[in-house]
């Protein structure tokens, strides 16, 4: 092995300083995001039609009976807030994984049809087959993986080009969304709120039974993705460069796709395809942190914050209650238009 050629000590120090400065700035931003998520979580538990002070909330969480609060906070607000954080984190993490791997902000799972696959499957499972609980999750994850494989296979021609995959994904996504709409239109006994869950995503009426699979998936799959963060950074430099740096590119790619699709599917089976959260979280995190470091954890936190804030706003900021997906949809659509306009101006094909 090469003896490290003697670099001038001042250069080594400058490198070390630059790296430490970046690392501490990054840590500060991540901790701030985490604090905001925690604060948002706390506010969601306390505030609403009725305000409950922090001590009541803590007593409910510790299992004491507090008249009124036990039902409102324990049964309604707590599972809803936990699902907002877990699903938001899942969407943000999976979204930025796809965007990083395919080197394109448009390549997020909610744009290229993976979320629609999970959503359509969940709607079919519940409405047409009257399934519930874990079966719905299984159905959603199998379908999401099948959609991912289908898009990959259709886009494959001497390797996968990001643009082709995105365009095919958008087409598949449109077909799957019309399938969802068709299934819902056939189900007469379904109310609009429930239909909205599978069209844009909603946290209304969340129960622990819906929340637990999402938490389980996050506990298993998030570490898989985080352990591949360095491989993903290397893969951003191109497949050949990554392989030359010692990354088993194909193996990493499969592991990352399966884990990210899994996160999307579990979160979607519980909350529906909350519009644009996967798509927005990565670019927002990138804007906050600047280029260079891994965006996985920051994007997850941004996703959690987005869902918490949008759900809260949807419930209380307007005269009517809107499901969370309507609010995130309103936020995400202009950004999608902006991205397309920008790439078009830059002369890109998409």
């Amino acid at each position, binding site marked *: *092995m090469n003896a490290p*050629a003697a670099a001038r000590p001042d250069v080594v120090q*400058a*490198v070390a300083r630059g*790296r430490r400065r970046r690392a501490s700035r990054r840590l500060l931003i991540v901790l701030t995001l985490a604090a905001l998520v925690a604060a948002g979580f706390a506010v969601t538990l306390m505030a609403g039609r009725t305000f409950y002070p922090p001590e009541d909330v803590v007593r409910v969480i510790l299992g004491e009976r507090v008249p009124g609060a036990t039902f409102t906070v324990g049964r309604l607000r707590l599972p809803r807030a936990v699902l907002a954080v877990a699903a938001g984190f899942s969407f943000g993490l999976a979204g930025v994984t796809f965007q990083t791997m395919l080197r394109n902000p448009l390549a997020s799972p909610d744009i290229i049809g993976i979320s629609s696959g999970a959503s359509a499957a969940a709607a079919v499972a519940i409405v047409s087959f009257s399934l519930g609980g874990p079966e719905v999750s299984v159905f959603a994850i199998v379908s999401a993986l099948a959609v991912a494989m289908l898009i990959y296979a259709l886009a494959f021609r001497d390797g996968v080009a990001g643009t082709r995959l995105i365009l095919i994904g958008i087409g598949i996504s449109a077909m799957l969304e019309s399938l969802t709409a068709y299934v819902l239109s056939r189900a007469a006994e379904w109310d609009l709120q429930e239909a909205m869950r599978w069209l844009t995503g909603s946290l209304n009426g969340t129960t622990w039974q819906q929340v637990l699979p999402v938490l389980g998936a996050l506990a298993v799959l998030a570490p898989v993705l985080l352990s591949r963060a*360095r491989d993903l950074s290397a893969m951003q*430099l191109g497949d050949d460069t990554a392989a*030359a*740096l010692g990354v088993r590119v194909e193996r990493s790619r499969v592991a990352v796709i399966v884990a990210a699709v899994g996160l999307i599917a579990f979160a979607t089976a519980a909350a529906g395809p909350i519009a644009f959260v996967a798509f927005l979280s990565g670019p927002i995190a990138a804007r906050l942190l600047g280029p260079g470091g891994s965006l996985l954890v920051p994007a997850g936190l941004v996703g959690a914050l987005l869902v918490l804030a949008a759900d809260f706003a949807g419930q209380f900021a307007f005269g009517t209650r809107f499901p969370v997906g309507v609010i995130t949809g309103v936020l995400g659509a202009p950004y999608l238009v902006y991205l397309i306009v920008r790439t078009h101006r830059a002369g890109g094909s998409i």
Partner: protein
Amino acid sequence: MTTYHTLAAENLTLGYGDRVVVTSLDLAVPPGAITVVVGANACGKSTLLRSLSRLLAPREGRVVLDGKEVHRTPAKKLARTLGLLPQSPVAPEGITVLDLVSRGRHPHQGVFSRWTAADDAAVAAALEATRTTDLADRAVDELSGGQRQRVWIAMALAQQTDLLLLDEPTTFLDASHQIEVLDLLTDLNRDRGTTIVMVLHDLNLAARYADHLIALAGRRLHASGTPAEVLTEENVRTVFGLDSRVIEDPVSGRPLVLPIGRHHVRTAPAAT
């Protein structure tokens, strides 16, 4: 200091899909030297380089590094001995020089391991060797072509490998930057004993900078040896389908290839 490694291809057949690009090729890379691969377009130069660095599995035959088959060596372990700079690496939008060069440390790091003082030292040494220290905080996409190429070479250097493979490191560079990059690689070779294998398009630059030249033609190794042995008028005709005169380069004393096209040739050519 530097350990010399032996890299060799034995009876190598390479291809993509049902297209065979290289057939039954044997070659040995001389340790501690600069080897340059030349050949016509699409003759398999890049394919050969990819296979030597484990990126492409051979159809037949094998690539052997220090007696061990490259395609059976763990990826990270190999990446600590042998580095490759591909033809068109991608720089993520907005990434700084320091961040990009730091990614060269990938094979030396575990999944969650911390960044060490050795990593800092390697990155600093790579920046210094390529004279990119002053660019460290700049974004890669705002650099000139020559600076960018130096930064990519710095990334490969941060990998600290004794063997370095480069696929056309001078493409898209103007004349002065081409010389700058090739001088830099020669410095590395002479100062640190890094074994270098690179693909070059320009025959005259290849002749000047190579210790060992490999010419590919018709899917096979056509000739190998010193530039003077390989760059004969006859070989240039077979390998490139080009008539030429080869004279001694007055600057370097190496061979200089003067192509003969259909135009701009004196009607009474000087006696050969």
